[in-house]
């Protein structure tokens, strides 16, 4: 109501709107007008009645003003300007409130109030069940028939005939048949590019030959239609995928109970990625997955790509550019990249069939960009993968469930009241009820209940004593690097710090491989005279090494200790690998090899060779990512990557579900070299060799400072090596680095405990 009956007015004043009010909501009263504030105390709340709305204000009686941000907003909405006059009235019938009369009509005022804060009055979730549009249906039916005809007339015009193109892909372990039928190539017709030459890869069949195939195809379709509704279609016929009951249970639950939206929270090492892959394959086979987005940490994008391609025949690109994000319907991208403004708008504007977020605990905080970004995605299905859905407090779990099924755990307040201990927020209450509600959206398999025990892992350190010649190589190279590390550029061209780091690592891997690298650099002719002399001298030192101690040890182990067991030897370097393979083959030991330049087919062949005939597989790190080699049980780390993730990936090839025998890991390190420190760091501080595969990633997530980017560990170690020539100083510094890992490990243990506290020890 914007007008007051005259008989009901006790006091009435007029106020002119000032800049001050329009900026801060402060209505300053002239002395004679302060009578209006008389009934109130200083700092007291006063209700202002504006039309149909009651807005809040604070009375600053002593200073003679009223403060109301809401009134200011209403005035702004009504486009009242500085200088406009408003009336303020105290009514006889309602003395505790102040009525504000604005110089606008009642209708405009009420409309404006609704616009300003319409949802303030009522909030209703209003949506009707979508109806099938008859016109859409009619268009679809006509379109299906029309498109058929449009295609046929083109074929007729081009004189095309029915043609069956067939191709065969033969894999070493099985035969795959691709039958590709095309009536003709429509694009070619459009471009008048039909060749009269017969296609060697195709074979023309007449219809009577085709008919049994068409009929069989119809039968296949009928079977798919019947089975598709209730059975898993994608779990058979997969390469290198061992499926476990808990994984199949998970797939069934996601497909048939959760409606494709769930948190997969298995304990580390139980195969969440495999579960996600199986679910993807199921939806893919059902034609339900045209648009797919996989968000992972940057370090895992390629691992996902490799694993989905190799195990599930889902070839997805890893997207790095906005053009690719627009071009591809299904892709993998790092969460950090996806949430940047350029990508965010592209990704959020699409309707996804499935969104998968790996390491989903990064969405724990609802205020973060990570959370807001994922919340803004429109997706029919969504999988959140994390072994630790709770990092600090139970509300994080609420946030994850909110992404999957908003409202299913009530509001945050209701959730807190119901499930969080009122005093100790780290403890739950009503665990049983919580678990029951969670079990609808969350699937958590625990190792204890899956009865999947990994066999023990035995780790042996072989501290080898280098020959005199090798020592000279190592010392001379390290000395050279120490002197020149900060003199060379950081840029990728020419001799740079990265190259020096690689040389340093090579020095403990293979003097021969080092020699080859030095030769390569010398050939480029980019070195200064002094540097060139040093390189030549180090190269000559390499020449003096007859047989490096590590190679001798491999030979000794394989021939004397391995007792015919299969052995995987990992090295970081292709040159070392080649040298090792040559050596083993020269000794008549059947050897397979694996490296990053091989395609999937060649790798598969090598795996088969290793499985069936070879005793040794020599692999580089990037060669073996994602492959299951658990039929072997001995792993030799010929040289040790400084990045612990890489070492864990090596171990993961053999010490994983499906391994039935004790796993033996041999770490080679040369005494009195940086390798000795690396071994200490990995085994004592990070305790890498004791941990279940998968845990390290979680621990690294607890690192802070520069080490947050684990890649920076390499340069940290390098800096220590360059800065300190004394071995004990080096050790001290690396110990300090190690303490950071130790702390991160302790934090992880706490987080793991939290999961048990909140979610219990059993499966969900």
């Amino acid at each position, binding site marked *: 109501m914007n007008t007051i009956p005259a008989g009901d007015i006790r006091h009435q004043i007029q106020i002119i709107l000032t800049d001050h009010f329009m900026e801060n909501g402060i209505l300053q009263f002239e002395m004679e007008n302060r009578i209006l504030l008389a009934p109130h105390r200083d700092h007291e709340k006063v209700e202002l009645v504006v039309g149909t709305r009651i807005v809040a204000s604070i009375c600053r009686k002593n200073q003679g003003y009223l403060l109301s941000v809401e009134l200011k907003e209403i005035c702004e909405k009504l486009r009242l300007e500085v200088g406009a006059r408003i009336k303020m009235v105290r009514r006889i019938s309602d003395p505790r409130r102040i009525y504000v009369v604005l110089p606008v009509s009642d209708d405009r005022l009420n409309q404006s109030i609704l616009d300003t804060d319409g949802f303030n009055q009522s909030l209703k979730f209003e949506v009707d069940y979508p109806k099938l549009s008859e016109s859409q249906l009619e268009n679809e039916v006509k379109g299906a028939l029309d498109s058929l005809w449009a295609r046929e007339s083109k074929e007729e015009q081009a004189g095309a005939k029915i043609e069956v193109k067939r191709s065969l892909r033969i894999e070493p372990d099985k035969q795959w048949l691709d*039958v590709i039928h095309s*009536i003709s190539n429509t694009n070619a017709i459009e471009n008048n590019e039909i060749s009269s030459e017969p296609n060697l890869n195709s074979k023309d069949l007449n219809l009577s030959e085709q008919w049994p195939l068409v009929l069989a195809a119809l039968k296949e379709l009928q079977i798919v239609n019947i089975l598709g509704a209730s059975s898993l279609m994608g779990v*058979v016929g997969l390469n290198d995928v061992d499926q476990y009951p808990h994984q199949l249970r998970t797939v069934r639950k996601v497909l048939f109970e959760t409606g494709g939206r769930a948190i997969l929270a298995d304990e580390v090492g139980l195969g969440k990625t495999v579960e996600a892959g199986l679910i993807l394959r199921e939806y893919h086979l059902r034609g339900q997955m045209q648009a797919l987005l996989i968000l992972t940490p940057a370090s895992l994008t390629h691992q996902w790509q490799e694993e989905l391609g190799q195990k599930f025949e889902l070839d997805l690109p890893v997207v790095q550019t906005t053009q690719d994000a627009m071009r591809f319907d299904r892709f993998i991208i790092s969460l950090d990249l996806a949430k940047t403004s350029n990508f965010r708008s592209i990704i959020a504007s699409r309707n996804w069939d499935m969104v998968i977020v790996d390491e989903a605990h990064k969405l724990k905080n609802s205020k973060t960009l990570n959370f807001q970004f994922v919340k803004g995605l429109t997706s029919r299905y969504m999988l959140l993968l994390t072994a630790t859905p709770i990092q600090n407090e139970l509300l994080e779990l609420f946030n994850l469930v909110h992404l999957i099924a908003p409202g299913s755990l009530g509001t945050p307040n209701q959730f807190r009241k119901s499930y969080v201990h009122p005093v100790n927020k780290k403890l739950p209450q009503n665990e049983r009820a919580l678990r029951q509600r969670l079990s609808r959206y969350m699937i958590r398999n625990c190792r204890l209940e899956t009865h999947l025990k990994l066999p023990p892992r035995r780790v042996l350190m072989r501290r080898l004593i280098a020959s005199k010649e090798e020592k000279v190589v190592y010392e001379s190279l390290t000395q050279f690097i120490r002197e020149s590390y900060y003199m060379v550029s950081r840029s990728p061209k020419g001799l740079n710090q990265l190259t020096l780091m690689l040389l340093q690592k090579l020095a403990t891997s293979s003097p021969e491989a080092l020699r080859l690298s030095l030769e390569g650099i010398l050939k480029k002719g980019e070195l200064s005279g002094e540097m060139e002399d040093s390189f030549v001298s180090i190269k000559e030192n390499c020449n003096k090494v007859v047989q490096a101690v590590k190679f001798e040890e491999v030979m000794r182990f394989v021939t004397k200790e391995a007792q015919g067991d299969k052995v995987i030897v990992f090295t970081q370097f292709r040159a070392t690998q080649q040298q090792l393979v040559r050596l083993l083959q020269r000794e008549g030991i059947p050897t397979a090899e694996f490296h990053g330049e091989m395609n999937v087919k060649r790798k598969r062949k090598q795996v088969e060779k290793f499985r069936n005939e070879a005793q040794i597989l020599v692999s580089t790190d990037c060669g073996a990512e994602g492959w299951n080699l658990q039929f072997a049980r001995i792993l030799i780390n010929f040289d040790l990557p400084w990045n612990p993730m890489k070492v864990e990936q090596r171990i993961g090839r053999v010490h994983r579900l499906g391994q039935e025998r004790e796993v033996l890991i041999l770490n080679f390190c040369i005494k009195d070299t940086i390798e000795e420190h690396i071994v200490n760091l990995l085994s004592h501080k990070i305790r890498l060799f004791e941990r279940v595969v998968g845990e390290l990633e979680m621990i690294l997530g607890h690192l802070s400072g520069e080490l947050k980017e684990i890649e920076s560990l390499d340069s940290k170690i390098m800096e220590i090596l360059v800065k300190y020539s004394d071995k004990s100083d080096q050790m001290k510094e690396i110990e300090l680095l190690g303490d950071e890992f130790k702390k991160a490990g302790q934090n992880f243990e706490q987080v793991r405990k939290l999961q048990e506290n909140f979610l219990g020890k059993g499966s969900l």
Partner: protein
Amino acid sequence: MSEMDTNISKLVNGLDELYAELKISGDMKSDNFLAIRKLGTLQEYLNGQVIHFNGCDEVEGVFLVVSLSCRRPSSHQVCRIFAHDRAQNVVLEKPNPVDFMESLTVSTVKGTKDLSRSDFAVFEKPIFSWVESEIKSIQERSKADFMEEKERLSIYYSKQFEELKNKKKSVFFHNYFFEKEARIKEDMKQNHSEMKEQESLLTLRYQPQFQIDVLLHGSLSK
């Protein structure tokens, strides 16, 4: 016989056997089917082929095999054969094209000149009715889920709104209420826009989305 032909015939025989088993028992093990499917799939053969049959006792006219793939609100795929009997001028429908087509004899490959789009206009209404009833029955089955979700979201947002409103009231007496109030109002706005998003998302998830494909078509003669 090449390796490829061997695989094709294995695939065809396997599908024949499984289909027969399915017809007799009304059930089959999905693993058996998937083992056969490991050899490949023949689905690409069902790609709008034109086929002419003779020896059809029932009908003389034209036919269509149509597939309906529904992606939303739930996954569902069915196919159906429609045949137009020219003599009687009626459209016949069968839910399983295999049984009908197994008894037919393939004639020769002809051009498409004998058939025109208008021959098939007669199928528009029957296909429309069939698709409509299929989708409506899918929608009927999904409605309970929709209502449950709607209820859940409705309760959530109104409760959330209530909480924010109470929170807003409770800060009125605070000196710095306007800062807090602004924050709460921001939360209210966010709650409102989130609710709107959820409304459209829910609609989108239950909006029927389907695809109609003509797998085979052609003529039938006695």
